[in-house]
């Protein structure tokens, strides 16, 4: 080719090729050096595999029990801290935790807790009633920024105290006006404002967990500007639960180490637990499948039908409802007839059977039907003819004249599919035009909060086992109402329910409130949640329950014998899979002794 160059200049050869080669070599050496350094950095952080690894679905916001609200945070905090009571892993009935016993007065207003003598912080200090008083005062201080401060408002004077502190103009009330008092180191006295049937449940709910005063105060002293993140550092945080934090890396894992000072440490089996923060469903399932993760908190519904055949996937209903909020403040959605027409034509069966596919149940009420004492009040079931009639009655025969229905949802495959299916049905059956509005998470939240939507995808998961955690949400003006719906009768009923000491009557009142809700339909219920945990078959001590809350302190690896015994009782059609974990199992020290004793006596 070069031979045929028609015109040309005689080049001046650069005589610096050696120098350049030297430089290139230098660049190579630098590159290798950087590689080595990085490799060293990476391998320095290498961890031995933990006894148990589970995926938490997302990186936790913080480990401070007072300020968290999310499910992933709850999972970690429940293994780090312990409240006055702990929940039974299956029934969630409160059992002695930090408090070894308690008494409740006849009128249900006075609680007296006795803190157990063996309760210790991970730094060796005893856990006292004063710790609880201090922690609860902290929760009721607006500066703490506790999202769940309201869970203590059932206590005498607590709400007033909180408001007086929040309002800079009003004089601050004394702490002594609040009905929380440490009588002595081991006695905590709590005076409630109204008989709150679920107050004991609340004592096992993370906002009411104690935090270590010395831990926080020394951080405040040493790091005045940044103490909020200093006291929770892995090397500083003091906990009172079955585990302590060994190390943390953002978007990677939290390594938990067994707390040997925990009062019930004898019954804790795993010495270390890794909590992963994988967000992508495919990735978490792949890790589980290859045995590097032993439990996954949710799965993609696209594989649901296969998973349902496996022994490690047993979705069970829990206290969660998926629904659409309707902004009732603006026409045409202020018209209840239109809301009813839309509600009657939601293809719930298709959604649960074709999209969700894990045994979810079509929802016709806000409160899920998993409570022993509360039967939800349902709205009308699907009826397309009635829906069309109602739509005509509302002034939009065959959808004519109705502006496009906009469904807002936050970016996610499942939400998109559900909105697509509902939109498709409304288009075909009602003749209305439907627009889907996919919004980025924070914008979606903002749209909901500022009522700039028509229909918006929502969900609610119960905080404690009571219908109140759902129904309280739609009292007019509540922060979580987000529909603009206000109904005086409903508000009165909810208020009445808080004052009613008799549970049967209270339930009846709550049911009449839900009846109003299901008649007025500021929300369109779609389906009730099931938990989506994939759990290694060998894991023992893991129970499905109404809140989908799980307690690592009870977990252990079964040995082959126990696993085989468990597999005897598998429902028909379930396929066996890799059980994970060691064949000999891993049991708590107490269990080991029991087993050794049993073996000895057999001999």
């Amino acid at each position: 080719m070069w031979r045929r160059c028609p015109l040309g200049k005689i080049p001046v050869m650069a005589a610096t090729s050696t120098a350049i080669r030297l430089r290139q070599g230098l660049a190579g050496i630098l590159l290798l050096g950087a590689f080595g350094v990085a490799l060293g950095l990476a391998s320095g952080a290498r961890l031995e595999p933990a006894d148990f690894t589970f995926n938490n679905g997302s990186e936790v916001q913080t480990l401070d029990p007072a300020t968290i609200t999310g499910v992933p945070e709850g999972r970690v905090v429940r293994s780090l801290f312990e409240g006055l009571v702990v929940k039974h892993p299956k029934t969630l009935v409160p059992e002695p935790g930090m408090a070894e016993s308690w008494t409740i007065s006849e009128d249900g207003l006075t609680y007296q807790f006795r803190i157990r003598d063996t309760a210790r912080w991970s730094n060796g200090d005893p856990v006292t009633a004063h710790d609880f008083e201090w922690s609860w005062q902290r929760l009721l201080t607006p500066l703490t920024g506790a999202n769940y401060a309201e869970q203590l408002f059932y206590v005498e004077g607590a709400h007033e105290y909180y408001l007086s502190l929040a309002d800079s103009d009003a004089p601050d009330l004394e702490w002594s006006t609040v009905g929380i008092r440490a009588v002595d180191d081991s006695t905590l006295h709590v005076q409630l404002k109204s008989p709150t049937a679920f107050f004991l449940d609340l004592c096992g709910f993370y906002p009411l967990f104690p935090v270590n005063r010395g831990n926080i105060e020394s951080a405040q002293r040493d790091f005045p500007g940044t103490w909020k993140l200093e006291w929770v550092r892995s090397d500083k945080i003091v906990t009172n639960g079955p585990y302590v934090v060994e190390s943390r890396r953002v978007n990677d894992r939290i390594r938990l180490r067994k707390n040997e000072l925990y009062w019930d440490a004898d019954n804790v089996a795993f010495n270390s637990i890794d909590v992963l923060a994988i967000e992508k469903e495919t990735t978490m399932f792949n890790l589980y499948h290859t045995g590097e993760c032993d439990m996954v908190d949710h799965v993609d519904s696209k594989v649901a039908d296969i998973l349902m055949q496996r022994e490690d996937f047993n979705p069970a209903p829990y206290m969660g409802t998926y629904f659409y909020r309707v902004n009732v403040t603006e026409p045409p959605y202020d018209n209840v007839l239109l809301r009813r027409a839309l509600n009657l034509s939601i293809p719930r069966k298709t959604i649960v059977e074709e999209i969700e596919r894990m045994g979810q149940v079509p929802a016709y009420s806000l409160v899920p039907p998993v409570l022993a004492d509360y039967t939800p009040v349902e709205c009308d079931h699907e009826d397309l003819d009635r829906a069309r009639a109602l739509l005509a009655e509302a002034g939009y025969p065959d959808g004519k004249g109705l502006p496009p229905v906009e469904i807002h949802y936050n970016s996610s495959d499942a939400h998109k599919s559900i909105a697509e299916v509902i939109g498709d049905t409304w288009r075909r059956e009602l003749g209305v035009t439907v627009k889907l509005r996919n919004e980025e998470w924070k914008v979606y939240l903002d749209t909901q909060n500022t009522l700039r939507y028509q229909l918006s995808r929502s969900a609610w998961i119960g905080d404690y086992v009571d219908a109140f955690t759902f129904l309280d949400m739609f009292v007019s003006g509540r922060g979580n109402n987000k529909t603009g719906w206000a109904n005086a009768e409903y508000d009165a009923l909810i208020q009445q329910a808080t004052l009613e000491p008799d549970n049967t009557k209270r339930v009846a009142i709550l049911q009449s409130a839900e009846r109003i809700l299901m008649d007025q339909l500021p929300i369109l219920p779609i389906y009730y949640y099931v938990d989506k945990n994939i759990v290694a078959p060998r894991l023992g001590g893991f129970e499905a329950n109404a809140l989908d809350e799980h307690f690592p302190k009870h977990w252990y690896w079964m040995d082959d014998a126990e696993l085989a015994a468990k597999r005897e009782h598998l429902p028909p059609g379930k396929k066996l899979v890799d059980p994970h974990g060691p064949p000999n199992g891993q049991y708590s020290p107490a269990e080991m002794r029991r087993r050794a004793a049993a073996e000895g006596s057999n001999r």
Partner: protein
Amino acid sequence: MDGKRRFDFGAGELERLAEEAREFKGESLWQDAWRRLRRNRFSWWAGVFLAIFMLGSFLAPVFPLRSPTEIRTERANLAPSFGGGDLNYLSEFKEDPTNDELDRAYWDLSFIDHGLLRMRMAIFKRWQPDTILGTDNLGRDILSRIVWGSRTSILVALAATLFSLLIGVTYGAFSGLMGGRIDNLMMRIVDILYSIPFIFVVIFLITFIGDRSTELEDKGIDREFVFYVVIGAVYWLTMARVVRGQVLSLKNSEFIEALRVMGASTPRILFAHVVPNILSIVIVYLTLTIPAIMLFEAFLSFLGLGIEAPKVSWGTLANDGTTAINPLRIYWWLVVFPAAAMGSTLLALNILGDGLRDALDPKMRGKD
């Protein structure tokens, strides 16, 4: 370099060169490029493939396919199968659907698409093939989604690329031609813009605009249009740099100097010599930019910020498909076909781009 040596040729050589120069006269740069492109088999076929593909994607409504948005959950996740017949095609329509009814079955279509859909009904009546490439988790036809998705993807890529080309070339050429302080300043501005992580900017712009979509739609600007502009606005920087660099090196090169000495006018130098010279490198970057934008669109789909349902694009299809890949069961048709469509198009674009580069390179004129 001294000038003495340059003309130090023998007489015979000069004669031959003059001959060669005369040969070139009859042919413009473009004719030459066209001829050479035709000779490059691979590039030629890549171009033909792309042309057919573009035409097909424009004519999507004419094909006897189900609506890409039509959900049939009872036919979900079907593997590819062949056959055909009256498969509920447009079942909810009367014989002569109104535009409203068509829009409901698809989305807000243009009048051209309405016409094309009517043409299709006239040609194929109610016949349509079976779900040749299978169905997705909502029972939508994958073939139809790929064909309709190609429209979105191609439109995004073309619009955004043209937009970036327009800004980039103007900016770069201006900067390079001006030289000196202005050039310096303009390039520093590009540097600054380069230094903002553009993913970050795009996310905020899309969020910002998505939030105001209702107001924008009232003004006749739809969300997709903004989407193109945002992406295009991000991709012009490289183009500007490359063009500027080329202009600068040409400006300092001897043949431009020679032209100046010979008294050629500035416009002549610019259009007859500079533009063809930068064109090759612009085209190379263009063929890199179109695929890059298509990939970027897919990336946004991965983040859930892509094209809005019910519309489809290859990016959303590829993303939906990859979630169907797992060790338990592989719905391979959900990912293989969209990936094949996307891959073959981008591959063809790249091959065509290389071919164009070779064909347009002025240094290669008359040689092969």
